[in-house]
């Protein structure tokens, strides 16, 4: 039932991309997304797509898992395309009864669709190849400079990794409690909104209780092992840049330079 919702959907397999330092992947994804907003012509997008395809090939994650993330934003994508297509003023291209498709509209729509797709797939690559824990580790280390401004980087990272760790557990718990109540004749699926909201009480109360119990247990277990926050804390697997990480940074840099240089060229108008 609820298992179908995948958040932090890590795909377990062996690949270079999986082994990369999470900081590289974070920075790479961020730069990749930013680069998408610099392009002015289709060559830029082409380069971005090729770059992304290469990374996907290297990651050994089947392509269908990449596009799975697209499903979530499909509606948004369609909406963007439709609005841009019909509502952008400019030189009319097609006139159907009352709606007009302009040349500018067509251009913007395609532009947006491509950009959004690349953006979603690009970030999927990161979440599919990095465990949530690894990701927060990378964030913690990458954001360490912010400590100067008194941002509690360690605490935030710890909270995030705990939260991420608990999502599947709570999901499983929800599934179990839901089943147990269905076995007692509960009905979560029929009736109007008020009835449905009421039907959630037998699910939510045990769920909250169990979440609090788990939180309490975890806090106790952490204190029993002398957890006192980030001060002086060392890591079992400290993040250290390897050769492959440097190579990856280089690749990203090359992509950025080439992509933005070619992507911003003023091309002769097509058609």
């Amino acid at each position, binding site marked *: 039932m609820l*298992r179908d919702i995948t958040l932090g959907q890590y*795909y*377990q*397999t062996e690949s270079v991309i999986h082994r990369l330092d999470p900081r590289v992947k974070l920075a790479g994804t961020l730069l990749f997304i930013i680069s998408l907003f610099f392009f002015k012509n289709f060559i830029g997008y082409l380069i971005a797509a090729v770059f992304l395809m290469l990374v996907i090939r290297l990651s050994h994650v089947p392509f269908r898992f990449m596009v799975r993330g697209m499903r979530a934003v499909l509606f948004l994508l369609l909406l963007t395309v439709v609005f841009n297509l019909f509502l952008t003023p400019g030189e009319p291209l097609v006139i159907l009864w009352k709606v007009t498709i302009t040349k500018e509209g067509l251009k913007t729509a395609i532009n947006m669709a491509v950009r959004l797709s690349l953006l979603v797939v690009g970030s999927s690559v990161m979440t599919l190849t990095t465990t949530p824990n690894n990701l927060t580790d990378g964030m913690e280390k990458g954001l360490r400079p912010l400590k100067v401004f008194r941002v509690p980087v360690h605490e935030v990272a710890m909270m995030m990794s705990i939260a991420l760790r608990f999502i599947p557990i709570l999901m499983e*718990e929800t599934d*179990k*409690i839901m*089943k*147990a*109540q*269905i*076995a*007692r*004749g*509960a*009905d979560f699926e029929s009736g109007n909104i008020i009835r449905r909201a009421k039907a959630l*009480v*037998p699910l939510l*109360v*045990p769920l909250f*209780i*169990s979440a609090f119990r788990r939180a309490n247990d975890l806090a106790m277990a952490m204190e029993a092992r002398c957890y006192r926050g980030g001060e002086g804390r060392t890591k079992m697997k400290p993040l250290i840049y390897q050769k492959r990480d440097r190579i990856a940074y280089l690749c990203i840099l090359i992509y950025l330079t080439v992509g933005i240089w070619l992507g911003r060229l003023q091309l002769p108008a097509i058609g």
Partner: protein
Amino acid sequence: MSIILDHVNYIYGGDTPLAVRALDDICLQIPDGQFIGIIGHTGSGKSTLVQHLNGLLKASSGSIYFNGEDIYDRDYDRKKLRSKVGLVFQYPEHQLFETDVFTDVCFGPKNLGLDKKEVELRAYDALRKVGLPDELFYQSPFDLSGGQKRRAAIAGVLAMKPEVLVLDEPTAGLDPKGREEILQQIRELQKKTGMTVILVSHSMEDVAEYVDRIIVMNRGRVMYDDVPKEVFRHGKELEEVGLAPPQVTYILQELRRRGLQVDTDATTVEEAADVVMRALQYVT
């Protein structure tokens, strides 16, 4: 009148790389009024199997018949099935949610659409049957002890008056005394009402003493399905899949190996004592 499972398969996480085959070609027939124990090592598919019996999980392939009707038929009333096959989950105390025990037990029968009087009557009856003392009826369920919570939760299912009662590890996490008491009560209930009871457990001792029939699960398959005596004959194979016959079986087998003519079929301590006494009289 019975439950029939016909080549039932179940796979968790169908199209992901993490697909797990939890049930593998299960064929079973469960007649009315039997007291059945399902045992198996952790992860052998016991919980998955029992969730099929009331239609909570839908088999990936195969069919299930309840009283001669296919429960996967499009117009089969699965909600009614759930009231006929009462399922008490592992750690059922986690499902308590009301402000007092009595109201919580009322939840099940109320969902059946019965009138208030009948609901309360059933709740009261169920609470008595599980042996929860009267003074606890109007306490918050969260203030009860582990064993009491467990009873309250079992009562919550009993109050629906199921024809088949399935209990998934009802004794997990209880002390020996609490365990004994709950099992005793379940047996009495079974005797008195004649309902079919299916008891899931991974402890042979729990099951051996009470049930008419044992189904041993291993890696999603039915390994043995027979009366306790016959199942415990396969001591070695059981050990290989992480289970152990009751301790008395070991003692009797060892006694026999050392030359005492005992009948090794005894499964409970009383039976064993009896057998040993007889054997000793025989040799002296």
